[in-house]
């Protein structure tokens, strides 16, 4: 599970910098996509047994692994809670987001 690196797309300044239609080299992401999350999944690294169930069930592919353990990419997690619901060892807690009231 090599997690591909996000290449941030530089915002075009002139119309000619846009691709011809919505087709472009794969791997670029112009936007983060998580703004409407109400609860965020938080993985308890002590309780986690690295079974990878959360990785399998995440509909947005936001669970990734490092040498230290499993983590959630909050730039793309929508907060659906499927990972917490499916975790056999209850290592994932859904924690209320505290958005700035603007």
């Amino acid at each position: 599970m090599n997690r591909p690196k996000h290449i941030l797309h530089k915002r075009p300044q002139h119309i000619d910098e846009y691709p011809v239609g919505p087709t472009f080299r794969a791997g670029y992401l112009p936007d983060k996509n998580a703004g409407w999350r109400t609860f965020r999944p938080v993985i308890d690294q002590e309780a986690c047994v690295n079974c990878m169930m959360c990785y399998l069930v995440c509909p947005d592919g936001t669970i990734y692994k490092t040498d230290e353990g499993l983590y959630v990419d909050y730039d793309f997690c929508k907060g659906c809670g499927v990972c917490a619901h499916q975790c056999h060892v209850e290592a994932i807690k859904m924690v209320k987001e505290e958005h700035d009231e603007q």
Partner: protein
Amino acid sequence: MSSKKVFVSGDEAVAMGARLARPHVVAAYPITPQTIVVERLSEMVEDGSLEAEFMHVESEHSAMSAAIGASSVGARTFTATSSQGLLYMAEGLHYASGGRFPVVMMNANRSVALPWSIFGDLRDSLSQLDSGWIQVYVEDAQEALDMTLQAFRIAEDQKVLTPFMVNLDGFVLTHTYEEIIVPEQEKVDAFLPAFKTPSKMSMDAPMNMGFSSSPADNMEFKFQQHMAMMDAMPVIEATDQAFGQAFGRYYKGMVDAYLCDDAEVVLVTVGSITGTARVVVNSMRAEGKKVGLLKLRYMRPFPVEQLQDNVRGKAAVGVLDKDISFGMEGTIYTNINSAMARGGLSIPTYNFIAGMGGRNISRDDIRYMFDALMEVADGGASRKQVEFVNMGVTIDE
């Protein structure tokens, strides 16, 4: 092989034009009155005279989806439809234009149900004016073949990359037989270079195709589509001229004006009825009546300036619409009034709704339209701006 003359229907002329363009993929579903196009193309693939993948699909929605898929990887792609089939494709039409996939499609203009009818009018394609496709309307079988060839060159131009709809009047063009010239394959090959997609799929450079876009970018893509359509106008003119040089038939670009220069009144027509109208103009000219005829060839992009140039200073302008946008007026009339208003032209305009659902439009009907326009020019009483011509019954005024 030299060019040859053959006696064929409009549908067969389109199939012959499509074969000459050497498409890689044909994906189409048969529907009256387009069916013969699909039959002939499948026979050509079967007998080996057309080396293309003929995709059998279960519907027009699938035909357009398959065409988009083929075009997206750089295949030259042809399809054809009509009426209900075009409407069933409607979702895909926007995908093709938004994706900038230069699919070429023949559409046999046919009435839209209900009441169910297989006969001709323009309510199918004109309802799709906003789908982002280039729309040309042809007058005869020769123009149908020739525009099928021009369509690929225009649609695949790197400045354009926009799908192209070639419209033929159902039955009047699709099922009547005419003598046409079939160009030589070598000359067509020289006229029509291979399609080069700007978004080629490869393992070295994987592409994300047909992505979504947030409000921060979406409007820019739509602006691009608009600019591509505007940029198509000079490409259409240049392509028509190049075609004329190569094959000896030049269609005068976006509009074909007939005796408009000194005319007092002008009637605007689209498609095959132009031939009948030209006969009426000739007989009225013989009587000394200064009438002119403007054959509007393209509905998208719309030739705003060419239209203005041909009606400026006239006493009245008539528009023949084989369609109606219920509760308003004919769609061609709407477009022409807008173009005239943008040029500051305040000329009285009159909309003649005729020939819907396959009703005949006779020389007498067109004579009636010109007489009405001349009456206005001579200072006659004001008349209804939107009028149904040749109704079979009396109606309350």
